[in-house]
């Protein structure tokens, strides 16, 4: 029994973390965000050069063939460094869809290019959770119509994985006729999302697509988003503690005031068990599949709540500085804010957790 990261896992996380600390330094993130870039090509290229764009992709297709726990450790680092890169869709949900539901040809065609970081894949599954503004995709044969909102990694994507209303899965290339991509702006400028509009767009069906596969993609996505919040929250705590140790008011560092200390202690006390929950949820995706869906719901919903508390509290500890753009703390604040709603807000996700256990219709 070992509930811990292995030496290899630690090293991998460390390597990627060190790379992002440097490559995704705040000034670089800020530039990318202010330019409304789809994602930062420089950071993504470097990230892919470490091999971790293919973290989940089988070695035969050029990936590392690692598991969801390793992927979650990567996602934690992208959150920690508010990295403007397409991780959740391109490196997790899309490869999972292809691996679970694609034909051998589809795998061979796309997985190596995803593993190398050469292409970016957007994922359109939001409407299978909740549909707004009349969105939803219908298929007739292999032709798609309708629209999809909040397409993860949509801006800059070369390829889309799209779920229709029945839970069938399709591959659509960005250049397909009848496809229109409209980018949406959220509070978080490090990970823009898209709307896709389909007018009789011819698509390629993933032969083994099913509602179960879509669910597995969502479970994985939620776990990654939870890990993203974990990393962002951890950084916000560290920043708050550092700031409190430096900032002086009333002739003392503010970190010596009990009120400030307790705010920091409360953040840490809330977040630390979350790390254990995220590890377990990610591990369960591979090793304890019968718990995978429930644990991803718990991780997603619980991290949403703790993340909101940490985001707000860290900003408060930073006082006026936290509210300005000067120290850039808001990049983490907003990352956590977007994480909360992507693939379902916590209220909706908890309702799903109840349904999974037969507690709700």
């Amino acid at each position, binding site marked *: 029994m070992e509930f811990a990261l292995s030496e290899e896992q630690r090293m991998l996380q460390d390597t990627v973390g060190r790379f992002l600390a440097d490559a995704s330094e705040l000034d670089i993130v800020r530039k990318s965000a202010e330019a409304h870039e789809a994602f930062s090509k420089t950071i993504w290229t470097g990230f892919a050069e470490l091999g971790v764009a293919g973290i989940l992709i089988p070695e035969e297709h050029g990936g590392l063939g690692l598991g969801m726990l390793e992927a979650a450790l990567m996602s934690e680092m992208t959150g920690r460094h508010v990295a403007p890169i397409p991780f959740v869709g391109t490196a997790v949900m899309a490869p999972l869809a292809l691996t679970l539901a694609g034909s051998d040809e589809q795998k061979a065609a796309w997985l190596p290019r995803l593993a190398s970081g050469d292409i970016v894949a957007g994922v359109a599954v939001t409407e299978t959770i909740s549909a707004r503004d009349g969105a939803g995709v219908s298929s007739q044969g292999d032709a798609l119509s309708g629209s999809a909102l909040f397409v993860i990694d949509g801006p800059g994507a070369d390829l889309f994985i799209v779920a229709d209303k029945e839970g069938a899965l399709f591959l659509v290339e960005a250049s397909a006729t009848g496809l229109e991509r409209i980018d949406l*702006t959220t509070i978080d400028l490090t990970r823009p999302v898209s709307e896709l509009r389909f007018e009789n767009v011819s698509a390629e069906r993933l032969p083994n697509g099913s509602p179960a596969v879509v669910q597995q993609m969502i479970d994985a996505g939620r776990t990654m988003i939870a890990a993203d919040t974990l990393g962002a929250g951890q950084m916000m705590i560290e920043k708050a503690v550092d700031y409190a140790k430096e900032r002086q008011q009333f002739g003392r560092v503010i970190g010596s005031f009990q009120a400030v200390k307790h705010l920091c202690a409360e953040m840490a006390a809330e977040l630390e068990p979350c790390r254990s929950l995220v590890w377990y949820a990610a591990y369960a995706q591979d090793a304890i599949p019968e718990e995978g869906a429930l644990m991803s719901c718990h991780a997603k919903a619980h991290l949403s709540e703790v993340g909101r508390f940490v985001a707000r509290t860290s900003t408060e500890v930073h006082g006026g500085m936290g*509210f300005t753009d000067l120290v850039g703390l808001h990049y983490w604040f907003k990352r956590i804010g977007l994480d909360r*709603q992507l693939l379902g807000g916590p209220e909706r996700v908890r309702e799903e957790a109840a349904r999974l256990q037969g507690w709700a219709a």
Partner: protein
Amino acid sequence: MDLAYGAEYEAFREEVKRFVSENKDKSPRQSGTGRPSDDQRKWQDLLIKNGYAARTIPSEYGGYGAEPDILKSRIIAEEFTRASLPLGLASQGVSMLVPTLLELGTDEQKKQWIEPTIRGEVVWCQGYSEPGSGSDLASLQTKATEDGDDFIINGQKIWTSTAQVSDMIFCLVRTEPDARKHEGISYLIFSMDTPGIEVRPLMTMTGYAEFNEVFFTDVRVPKNQIVAERGQGWFVANATLKHERGMLGDPNQAGTRLAAIIDLMHEETVSGERLIDNPLFRDRLVQLQARVAAMQFHGMRLLTASAKKEDPGIARLVVKLMGCELNHQLAALAIDALGELGVLYERSPHLRAGGRWQRSYMFDLGLIIGGGTAQIQKNIISERGLGMPREPKPARKEGAA
């Protein structure tokens, strides 16, 4: 308890209503810059003439010269709000400088500044906070050294709203470096055109520059542009700061927001279900509705105390803390109920209400922090409201402030 206003006030209300209906079409467009437009200045003149702005400012200084009557002020506010008409100017000059001058200014200062300020001809900004002096305002470092009949000012201010459009600034500077920290500050007024002043917009987390930083490099100000005595600036400023804190956490704003959320939850649907039909969001809505009601009634209680010149004690001290938090929580509910749509921002397609909920959610957090952080508010409530002891002074300083 008597929530009716009584005959005299109802008559006054009729008067206001008549004015409102007769002058509806004169309602000015907002300039959007923080500086009143010509339209707005004309409107302000009309309001002053009729006693609906600068109501209690003596007529010798250009005001209407009425006795203070808080209920009449409230009736004016109610009727103008009901008709969506803008009230009189509530700039920092009008709400903070003018009361200060009336109390502590020289006759000359009153004559020179009050009338153009209330008419919107002279626009003021406030120079109090500094990057190193937030909660501990008295530690401010902007220096004014003497040079003949002038002060030479060097330093930096922050959180200065409307600085880029202001004519004048009222400013706290350290004139007595050797005095104890609360006793070395003076309150100066000077032109924003004085050489050596630089204004830089201060972008906040909302993505907008609601404030500015103001830098002073050898700014020369005649010594007679001081309000009250040298070294008295801290006490001068504190009187008006209390007023500012009282304004934050206004329950009427919460009521307006609540109404907007109720509408939103009836209009928006997720997968065909109206948000109001979701029991979790509905429960939060009712919880916040109770809080909004409590704060509104609480405001009426404070208003009554104020009208009777009674000290409402702790009841007043809790308003900023509870009011700002309530506004923040209202925005959070709107965002959560909107779900994925709730995170959209700027000019995104599918954006709701121009992104106001996210902007409020962040700006309210700024208000929770600003004007005395929640931690400072709790110190005040426990010390002044509950009579608990102050934090003991540390045995040795850990460093300079």
